[in-house]
């Protein structure tokens, strides 16, 4: 360990392991308790038949719960290992010792990893005899998967925590940055969308999200999906450790005590904090002052609220960076705030007034290769997967006509933008059915354009859409694909005001299936319809589990209705 070539100093390592023994001791006790001990108790009280299921479910729960435990534990371990960088006395003293920075960094990283990996390994190894004792098959695989998840989760969070410790000159700011880094990938796009959605007519992000930028959220949502994401984040953790070292090499110790220890980090911190705080506060201010009014119609007032929010955000960020409340004494700081506020306001106004013409744009027939159409109703019993793909030029023209109708009505002021980002017809009669239609254009150049509009069933566009959904061959293929051969249960609800359950049972399903297919072949059972008489909920077997299917039975489906009435 004392070799000049060694990257790890034995004395420093021993100091870390002994000084922080209470921390890793508690963690060790925790992972032993929730690992082998909990497994032993759970399997001991379970019947023979379902021990495997219980073991699998318990280990899955452990994988999910450990994400949050490791989120905090990694911050603590990185904190204790690198806290000396955040106090002038300790930073100077530690760097006066005859140990170079690489050795200090590597020793601290090894310490931090040992704090977690040894307890995790011990816990996983002890799970093996417990699983074997109760005859759970594939014990090695189950314990190995648990260990792999734990190790990769910890690696990700530890790498991020060390990186944040390195960037910051103060422990509190480092901890806050770490927690913010874990959610900002979700939080910032969320806030941006809250603002852009009401302003961008027809905005459709196609379910895309930025949660992959938030390790905590992404790992939580993907916990049951194998090791891909944990491995990705584990690798990211390693990259962050490497970046942390590159920063440590050039760290100026005189920056100790400052919120951010590097120039670029100060700029990023200022921008992200100002934007995040500014957008949130601006939005909240608007909601308060406008009593929840439309951003679209009060965009200038909203911009004022945003400017106020950004001012507070910029003030807060500057205050933390310079550790004083007199942050706007320098003209340069006013200029930076002005530039940020101006950029945000211009973006908001640009979207609101469609400066780039994106909201008015309808693709030409020649440029479109195909269009995917699907609807999404407000009803929880809306039809599933009513997606159709249009390639026929004749039908493509129908879709483009529908799209054009929307943009023209919007331009003519016949459709008003709503706070939820869609549009409605203010002249639609009371009780008319509104539903959301999504258009996904695949252009010949390889581009994809997504739009979403709210239609009312009296609109011309809605009738055009109904026509596309009612093409007999398309309907027959669609229902033949989605209807299972057999079902376990069947429930039929009347869609009148009572929404009552009828007494029909699964025994009628074979006949019902034939009737639906016959109606579909006759064009009487469209893929999507607005005039619904019944909701049919089917439960069918699928592998080890089961799935549900909700069907809307239209008033035109004569054969089907004959069975259900």
């Amino acid at each position: 360990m004392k070799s000049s070539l060694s990257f790890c100093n034995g004395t420093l390592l021993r100091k870390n392991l002994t000084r922080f023994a209470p921390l890793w001791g508690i963690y060790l006790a925790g992972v032993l308790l929730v690992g082998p001990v909990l497994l032993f108790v759970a399997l001991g009280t379970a019947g023979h038949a379902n021990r495997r299921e219980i073991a699998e479910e318990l280990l899955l729960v452990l994988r999910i719960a450990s994400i949050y435990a490791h989120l905090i534990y990694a911050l603590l371990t990185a904190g204790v290992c690198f806290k000396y960088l955040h106090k002038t006395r300790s930073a100077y003293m530690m760097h006066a010792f005859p140990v170079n920075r690489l050795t200090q960094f590597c020793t601290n990283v090894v310490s931090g990893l040992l704090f977690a990996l040894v307890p995790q390994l011990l816990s996983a190894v002890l799970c093996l005899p417990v699983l074997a004792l109760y005859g759970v098959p594939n014990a090695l695989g189950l314990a190995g998967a648990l260990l792999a998840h734990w190790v990769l989760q910890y690696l990700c969070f530890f790498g991020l925590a060390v990186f944040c410790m390195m960037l910051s000159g103060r422990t509190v700011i480092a901890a806050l940055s770490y927690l913010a880094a874990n959610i900002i990938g979700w939080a910032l796009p969320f806030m941006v969308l809250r603002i852009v959605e009401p302003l961008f007519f027809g905005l459709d992000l196609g379910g895309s999200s930025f949660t992959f930028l938030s390790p905590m959220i992404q790992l939580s949502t993907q916990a049951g999906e194998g090791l891909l994401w944990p491995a990705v984040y584990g690798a990211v953790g390693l990259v962050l450790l490497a970046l942390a070292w590159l920063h440590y090499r050039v760290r100026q110790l005189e920056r100790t005590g400052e919120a951010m220890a590097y120039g670029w980090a100060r700029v990023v911190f200022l921008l992200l904090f100002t934007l995040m705080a500014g957008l949130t506060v601006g939005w909240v201010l608007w909601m308060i002052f406008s009593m929840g009014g439309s951003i679209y119609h009060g965009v200038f007032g909203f911009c004022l609220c945003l400017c106020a929010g950004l001012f507070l955000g910029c003030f807060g960020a500057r205050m933390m960076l310079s550790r004083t409340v007199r942050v706007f004494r320098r003209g340069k700081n006013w200029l930076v705030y002005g530039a940020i506020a101006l950029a945000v306001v211009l973006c908001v106004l640009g979207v609101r007034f469609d400066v780039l013409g994106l909201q008015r744009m309808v693709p030409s027939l020649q440029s479109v290769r195909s269009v995917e159409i699907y609807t999404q109703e407000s009803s929880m019993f809306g039809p599933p997967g009513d997606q159709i793909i249009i390639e026929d030029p004749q039908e493509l023209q129908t879709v483009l006509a529908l799209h054009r109708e929307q943009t023209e009505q919007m331009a003519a002021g016949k459709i008003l933008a709503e706070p939820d980002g869609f549009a409605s017809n203010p002249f639609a009669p009371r009780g008319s059915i509104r539903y959301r239609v999504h258009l996904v254009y695949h252009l010949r150049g390889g581009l994809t354009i997504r739009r979403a509009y709210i239609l009312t069933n009296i609109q011309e566009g809605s009738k055009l859409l109904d026509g596309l959904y009612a093409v007999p061959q398309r309907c027959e293929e669609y229902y033949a694909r989605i209807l299972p051969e057999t079902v376990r249960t069947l429930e039929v609800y009347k869609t009148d005001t009572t929404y009552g359950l009828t007494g029909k049972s699964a025994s009628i399903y074979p006949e019902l299936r034939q009737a639906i297919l016959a109606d579909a072949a006759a064009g009487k059972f469209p893929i999507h319809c607005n005039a619904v008489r019944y909701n049919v909920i089917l439960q069918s077997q699928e592998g080890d589990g089961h799935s549900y299917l909700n069907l809307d039975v239209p008033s035109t489906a004569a054969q089907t209705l004959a069975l259900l009435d």
Partner: protein
Amino acid sequence: MLEVRNLTKTFDGFRALDELSLTVPKGAIYGLVGPNGAGKSTVIRHMTGILRPDSGTVTIDGSPVYENPAVKAKIAYIPDDIFYFPSSNLRDMRRFYGGLYPGFDPDLYRSLLQVFGLDETMALRRFSKGMQKQAAFLLSICIRPELLILDEPVDGLDPVMRRQVWSLMLQDVAERGTTVLVSSHNLRELEDVCDHVGIMHKGKMMLERTLAELQDNVVKAQVVFREGADTLPEGLKVLHRSASGKIHTLIIRGSQELVNSALASVNPIFFDLVPLTLEEVFVYELGGVDYEVKSVIL
């Protein structure tokens, strides 16, 4: 030999060190003095390899100090504000220093522990400031350093302990020829122990000489002139002149021999040459440069 050459360090546009150069010869006890904000602690942090220079070099026997564990293992550093690991005791620190410094002498540690009378099992944070300084001295001496760097070393110690600490340090210098650099405001104390002195002001080295050179170069004379014959000979450079009754006090630049013969030539009733204290040397040498220097030294 510790050499600092053209060292410059800027903190957010403020030039803390400005092309600073100094030389500490091997075996010397070098006193580094200067007013608050002169850059004494900053230059010491460069000498101990804590801070990276913007430009210039800090070397010990020709090897750079920054990121050089082999050189740093020869240096013991006692800052003005000592850091110990929270909840650690002297025994923990002894193990830590013993692991990091190959020259750590456990026998010396045990004997010095008796001298200082410190409880090595007591948490260091429970020690008084003076006891913490003693502990730092104890650990630093025990690593058998070639260079001992002390930033306000006896600040907070009682007079008995000050004397003990200085005598320990001088004993180490005498036995092993340790080079010592001391930063202090207390010129009277430095006068007793230092053989080299450097004075800093606003990040620059204003004066760097041996104590003997300094004291040989300026002489304090008390003279009673004959009636009407108080004119001094041509060429005598008088830095300061004051009178109390018939007794004139003169501070004159030049060697004792030169001043002696010059004063004898005017045939005064009485004259005597009095040795200058370090404080007086600084005041009269540098008093005209900047009142801040004077105020600190006085």
